[in-house]
């Protein structure tokens, strides 16, 4: 039996908890015990995650806007699966994914200058740099140099190795399993597939990337709780610097879990609706900042797109959807969105990708508001990046082995739980052969 939480009266009124008394207890699959982060410091556990999670779950690798024309392609390095993929729009307009490996001697097929770096472009075929074996956009082997030198070779049997690929709302997903256990729609489940958002209209894209020395889950956890911002980011503006603001903390208005996925919704601060001191001088003159541009983009209407604000909160500023295992979409009230990808590289290392998508700006004022929005993201994200490397070091000391998670950190608790469930399922199926 868990002891009741002691939430200050005003916060309890403003951010009511479910009837069970807490968000955590509202979800029967979660307990309230302290949590171990051994799974974030163990190379052995990471080896299991690679097989149990990253080779079984659907992974988002990009958007259809990156593949507008026939022959448009990009490569995706997946260190977590020790592979590279080619994702390409074929002459038949179908989007396919292949392992980026020549069938002849195993050379990586599409790369330029540095074999480990991602590329993109448009082409009519893929020719291997080594001996010139050539594949069409649908993956068929079309040319073998000195074909007559090969013993009884049948070109039809040497196409590129396909990877399962499916598209939801313009997001291109792959699944590395020989036969995925679920379709993409089944995997995403009702909470995520309820989202119908005009993604295709938000084509002004900024892409950030960071190489960070910490476990992917340790990093992701900071982006799925709003408990830390008043402290870690507490110097970002004069209001947050005030002691009483810090002491009050911040409350998430709504949490929801659906299968391995989760969402947290909060109030917002765009449009200058908080006290003026919350905003730095540049934010007031450019009408943008932490919450993105203050003025609604052209996609904003009186009604929110389906699937957003699932808790139907009156004061809504953003939804942070966490799509298992390593993908997040954050929707903001003024009509733009962010995606995050957490790509593990080792048990103590990840590549963090953040993409911001806006409506194409109609003038310099809108352009500058977007630029200030993405600059602010960097000021905050660098604070996270620095601190989370310190967290990894703290965890690796094993001086402390279990950690209390509060009700505001329910999403961290859920991810930890789902990861262990997937690994246990995998180990069970392997034991059963």
């Amino acid at each position, binding site marked *: 039996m868990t002891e009741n939480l002691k939430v200050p009266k005003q916060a309890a009124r403003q951010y009511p908890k479910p009837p069970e008394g807490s968000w955590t207890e509202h979800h029967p699959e979660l307990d309230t015990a302290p949590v171990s982060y051994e799974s974030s410091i163990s190379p052995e556990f990471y080896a299991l995650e690679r097989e149990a999670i990253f080779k079984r779950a659907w992974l988002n690798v990009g958007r259809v806007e990156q593949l507008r024309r026939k022959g448009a392609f990009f490569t995706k390095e997946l260190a977590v699966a020790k592979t590279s993929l080619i994702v390409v729009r074929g002459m038949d307009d179908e989007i396919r994914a292949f392992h980026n490996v020549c069938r002849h001697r195993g050379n990586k097929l599409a790369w330029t200058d540095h074999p480990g770096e991602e590329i993109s472009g448009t082409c009519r075929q893929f020719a291997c740099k080594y001996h010139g074996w050539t594949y069409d956009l649908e993956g068929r082997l079309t040319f073998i140099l000195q074909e007559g030198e090969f013993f009884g070779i049948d070109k039809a049997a040497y196409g590129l190795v396909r990877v399962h690929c499916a598209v939801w709302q313009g997001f291109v997903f792959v699944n590395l399993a020989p036969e995925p256990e679920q379709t993409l729609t089944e995997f995403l489940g009702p909470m995520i597939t309820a989202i119908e958002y005009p993604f295709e209209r938000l084509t*002004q*894209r*900024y*892409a*950030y*990337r*960071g*190489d*960070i020395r910490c476990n992917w889950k340790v990093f992701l956890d900071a982006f799925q709780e709003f408990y830390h911002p008043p402290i870690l980011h507490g*110097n*970002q*503006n004069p209001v947050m610097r005030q002691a009483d603001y810090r002491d009050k903390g911040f409350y998430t208005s709504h949490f929801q879990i659906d299968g391995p996925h989760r969402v947290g919704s909060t109030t917002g601060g765009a449009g200058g609706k908080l006290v003026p001191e919350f905003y*730095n*001088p*540049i934010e007031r*003159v*450019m009408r943008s900042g932490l919450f993105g541009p203050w003025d609604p983009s052209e996609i904003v209407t009186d009604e929110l797109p389906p699937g957003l604000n699932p808790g139907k909160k009156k004061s809504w500023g953003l939804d942070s959807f966490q799509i298992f295992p390593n993908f997040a979409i954050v929707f903001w009230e003024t009509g733009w969105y962010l995606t995050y990808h957490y790509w593990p590289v080792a048990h103590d290392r990840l590549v*963090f990708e*953040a993409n911001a998508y806006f409506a194409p*700006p*109609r*003038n*310099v*004022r809108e*352009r*500058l508001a977007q*630029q*200030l929005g*993405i*600059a602010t993201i*960097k*000021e905050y*994200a*660098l*604070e996270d*990046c*620095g*601190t989370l*490397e310190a967290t990894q070091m703290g965890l690796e000391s094993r001086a402390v082995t279990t950690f209390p998670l509060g009700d505001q950190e329910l999403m961290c608790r859920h991810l930890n739980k789902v990861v262990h469930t997937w690994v246990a399922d995998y180990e069970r199926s392997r034991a059963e052969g």
Partner: protein
Amino acid sequence: MADALLPAPFAALEPFVAAWCLDSEPERYAKRLSSSMDEIQAFYDAIFPRTEEAIRYLEQFPLDALPEDASRLLKLLYSLILISFPVEIWRQPAIPDTGTASFELELEPVP
């Protein structure tokens, strides 16, 4: 003035063009980190009070057809955005406690 770097109303900002009129965010961020707070503050003090006026001036052009002098002014405003943080928040060019952390902008729209 045929060879003016900036639109005439903003001629007073010309001394800052050489240092702060840069084409990409990585160049601008590197410039922020390699500048002293005195240099940053001098640029901020010169351009920040002109921000609204500059936006109004630039708004008269389509975004994809900015004259060259206007385009330079816009790039100065992009630099202003990045150096506003050291001036308004950090009192130093770099964000505190970010040591070796990396978070680089690899793709950005032009202009």
